[in-house]
């Protein structure tokens, strides 16, 4: 019960925001007498949304986008977390890899889309590649930062309590001590991944929420575009809330 109350209290600002957006939107539609193919009124979009839900199409596209993000994000985590742990503990490794990271990091994942299309066409691999680029660096940097911020006294405590080899020290002290920071990296990267997949699907896909939007534009269905955008926003907020919840489960971080 308590949980339901706090959850609804958290959701309240989003409800206000939604009402505000709909009002402004309606005012703009009325004031500019915009053609429905350019800016449909909220009501038309709501109807379009219901139709997409009823046909199940929206779930299909959202599911495809989510599956792409999730698989690429997991792949990123599987590589970035061990690498970050090692970089955080080894100055040599950090000096070796950090310049490479710094060079690649400012290149937006979107800038990789042309190469992804050249290499992978419009296959799934291309999309996974783009999201991988978008999610890898946030996870890596958060992991390195997490390891480096570990109080050295905890490492010493681990050593005098029997973690005398590198592996057990990693498993028993370094990993759990940097976990809160890693979870933050996972949350942030899921957000960047979610943004990247939409962009990738806009350009090169036959399914997914990005495709839904691009297709809406091509067939002059602004309502479909707006439904797609709304679903992207709502799911994004939902994922973020889920990761915040996970973060709280690791409450010792405070």
């Amino acid at each position, binding site marked *: 019960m308590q949980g339901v109350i706090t959850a609804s209290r958290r959701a309240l600002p989003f409800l206000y925001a939604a009402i505000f957006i709909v009002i402004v939107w309606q005012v703009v539609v009325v004031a500019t007498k915009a053609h429905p193919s350019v800016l449909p009124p909220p009501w038309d979009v709501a109807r379009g949304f219901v139709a997409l839900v009823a046909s199940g199409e929206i779930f299909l596209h959202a599911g495809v986008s989510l599956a792409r993000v999730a698989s690429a994000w997991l792949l990123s985590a599987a590589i970035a977390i061990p690498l970050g742990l090692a970089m955080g503990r080894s100055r040599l490794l950090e000096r070796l890899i950090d310049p490479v990271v710094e060079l690649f990091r400012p290149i937006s994942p979107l800038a990789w889309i042309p190469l992804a299309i050249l290499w992978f066409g419009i296959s799934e691999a291309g999309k996974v590649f783009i999201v991988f680029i978008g999610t890898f660096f946030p996870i890596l940097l958060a992991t390195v930062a997490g390891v480096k911020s570990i*109080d050295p006294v*905890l490492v*010493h*405590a681990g050593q*005098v309590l029997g973690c005398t080899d590198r592996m057990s020290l990693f498993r*028993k002290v370094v990993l*759990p*001590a940097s976990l809160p920071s890693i979870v933050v990296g996972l949350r942030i990267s899921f957000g960047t991944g979610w943004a990247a997949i939409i962009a990738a699907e806009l350009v090169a896909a036959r399914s997914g929420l990005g495709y839904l939007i691009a297709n809406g534009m091509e067939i002059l269905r602004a309502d479909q575009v707006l439904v797609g955008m709304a679903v992207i926003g709502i799911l994004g907020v939902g994922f973020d809330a889920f990761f915040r919840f996970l973060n709280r489960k690791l*409450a010792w971080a405070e």
Partner: protein
Amino acid sequence: MSTPGRQAVSGKPITIDGVTKIYASRSGAPVEALAPLSLDIAAGEFVVIVGPSGCGKSTLLYMLAGFSTPTAGSISVAGEPVSGPDIDRGMVFQSYALFPWLTVRGNVEFGLERKGIARARRREIAAEYLALVGLLDFADKHVSELSGGMKQRVAIARAFATEPSVIFMDEPFGALDALTRRFLQRELLHIWREHRKTVLFITHSVPEAIFLADRIVVMTARPGEVKSTIAVDLPHPRDLTADGFRDIERRIYADLDEELARSFAQEGRSEGG
């Protein structure tokens, strides 16, 4: 020994032979933290080191624990040279160093698990040591829910639970208020008497040193070496107002004052030059 233990001595002797430590300062100039320092500590003895700030007490303790190596000289426990950290040499840190992702019990069981003790037995041992520090009811709490004094009691239970031969304590009560400190000093003596580990304890507090120690080692200003050692032959529990206590206090303060004057003079010189 001034306090005959109920149990047989299970600690091991420590030999520190001509240990020096020179490290590079930020400007690159070598800093001599310890002059050749030699000290023999008997099995089961409770030795307290006092000395001016920066005299290398903590440097010495970190070398004893195996976190760093001496520039010259040797350290051995029961004849075995110290070559790195080991579960047989426990440590209690000033900042507690509890693992915040584990419960109180989890912290005490950490070393027991590393020793390969089965789960059920781990629970028993952890309960025994938590009871010894009066925190059995808090076994399932998280570290963040404890006060500083309680945290240090958990850390003491954690250090003793693995039954190391020697335990190093780096100003363990330095961050606690005076009353909590008094209480924990008694508790520590109680545990030490039950288990008779060799304890090497660092403090800034002269009364604390006299209250706890079999023997007090006063260190010189940097580079640190042994200035004097004073055996404390007063019966436990020690009365801070007794004449014998006061006599020892006077002697230690006299030694420390000399060293403080020397260390201030040094600082003046290095600032001037």
